[in-house]
């Protein structure tokens, strides 16, 4: 039992500290630097260690968190102290826990033990993801309510309405994905995407479910409450919305849960539509080039290449979300609701119907 616990702990540490949080840190850096590039200004170059600025890398990766952690944690009078304390934690935790079902490799063998490179190999992985993303709303709602501030309250109310609305479209997009793969298990889905079409085109889910990809991406950005969907925060009207009354480390936790959600959306999109840890042409035995040369590789190297490939895909989709965030203006509230209920929901429903017909016609799916 002790060894089992050690292995699971090792997987969690590897996944969260070495993969997810690294991408989160890169995301924060991109947020500063990409915004500067997009707005045609010199950005993120104010902090330096011994004169070394490093493209603003140091001030975003070191100075930013240190600044937040050293600030005074102001808890205003009149707040509900218990919920004010717990809200940032309730916001961050579900987003981190959701990574448990994201596979980051096939299996590796160490000392005669077969270790699956996934923290929790749940047979109902998709349901787990939906459950965790739906719990993320509590952090927003409770922060808004506990702050005893009308701007915060408005932000919390907006957040809950927005997240519930877009969860429906997200769930329906995932229904089509589940119909395509015929399984709820994320590892099975990734394994399904290992082949090549015509010998060169990777058989990734995006080829079968382009509409579901668009719906999931848009709904995912809405769930992460970032521009153009940042009405719960909406600094021009609500100061900072639901986290107006937060400072120091708690404010950092809200910021971080935003970025963890961005990486989570990247991970989900990668897993469902872009082959997860799959590298085209790479199988457990080694690498096969499109013209048929086979290069045998040891399994640990294969596992390492796959983890790096997954990391690069995560970075790509994180970057894409940041570019979207700095390109679009904020929606009006009625536009937000119209897009969710009259745009994405019917689109996702039609996609489910289409997929169901296709699966019946091909006779595919799990049967």
């Amino acid at each position, binding site marked *: 039992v002790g060894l089992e616990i050690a292995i699971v702990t090792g997987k969690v540490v590897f996944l969260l500290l070495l993969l997810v949080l690294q991408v989160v840190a890169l995301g924060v850096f991109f947020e500063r630097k990409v915004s500067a590039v997009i707005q045609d200004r010199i950005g993120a170059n104010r902090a330096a260690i011994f004169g070394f600025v490093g493209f603003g890398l140091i001030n975003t990766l070191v100075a930013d968190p240190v600044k937040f952690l050293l600030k005074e944690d102001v808890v205003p009078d009149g707040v509900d102290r218990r919920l004010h304390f717990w809200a940032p934690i309730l916001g961050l935790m579900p987003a981190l826990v959701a990574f448990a079902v994201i596979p980051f490799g096939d299996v590796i063998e160490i000392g005669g033990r077969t270790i699956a490179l996934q923290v929790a190999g749940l047979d109902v992985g998709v349901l*787990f993801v*939906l*459950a965790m993303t739906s*719990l993320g709303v*509590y952090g927003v709602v409770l922060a808004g309510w506990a702050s005893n501030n009308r701007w915060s309250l408005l932000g*919390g109310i907006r957040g*809950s309405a927005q997240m*519930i609305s877009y*969860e429906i479209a997200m769930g329906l997009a995932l229904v089509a994905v589940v119909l395509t793969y015929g399984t709820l298990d994320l590892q099975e889905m990734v394994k399904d995407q290992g082949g090549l079409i015509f010998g060169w085109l990777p058989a990734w889910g995006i080829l079968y479910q382009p509409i579901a990809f668009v719906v999931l991406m848009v709904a995912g950005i809405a769930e992460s409450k970032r521009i153009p969907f940042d009405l719960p925060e909406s600094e021009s009207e609500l100061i900072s919305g639901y986290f107006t009354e937060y400072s120091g480390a708690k404010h950092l936790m809200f910021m971080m849960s935003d970025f963890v959600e961005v990486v989570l959306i990247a991970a989900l999109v990668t897993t469902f539509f872009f082959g997860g840890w799959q590298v085209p042409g790479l199988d457990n035995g080694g690498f096969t080039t499109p013209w048929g040369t086979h290069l045998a590789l040891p399994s640990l190297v294969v596992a390492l290449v796959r983890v790096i490939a997954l990391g690069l895909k995560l970075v790509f989709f994180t970057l894409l979300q940041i570019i979207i965030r700095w390109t679009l203006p904020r929606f009006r509230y009625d536009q937000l609701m119209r897009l969710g209920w009259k745009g994405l929901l019917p689109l996702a429903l039609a996609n489910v119907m289409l997929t169901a017909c296709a699966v019946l016609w091909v006779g595919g799916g799990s049967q």
Partner: protein
Amino acid sequence: VNPILFLVLAALTIASALVVVLHRSPVYSALGLVGTLGMIAVFFLGLDAHVVGFLQIIVYAGAIVVLFLFVIMLLNLQEEPEALATTTMVAVATGGGVALAGMVTLGVARAPLATPALAQGFGATAPLAERLFTAYLLPFELTSILLLVAIVGAVVIGKRHLS
């Protein structure tokens, strides 16, 4: 299920259920409800019913109670300064609760103890879906019609002017 784990979980479930009933603040009551429903989901998971367990979290904790909180916040309900319930109401409710608990205990005590062994893959998605769409198809579809009727009713009530 490990008996110690069961007792701890059961105690937590009852404690959060008591918060729902006893706490003055409506927000805390709603949170107690989330806790209770979440613990019931944990029991489902412990009984190998993964699908039902996660559906419990998605539907109840993730959607329904969030809507409760939404309404509580929208109406800006504050803590009740004094208890709304009269002594008679408390007495009737307590009596009813004790009677219900007694009946459930009696029923469980009389039920046959030997449970049949679970089939292979019990609680997995495929067998569950197969039962749902063959043996229980009619109740399943009737439930969805019931929900549809409720949605139509909500829309009708929500519309101020029917033209």
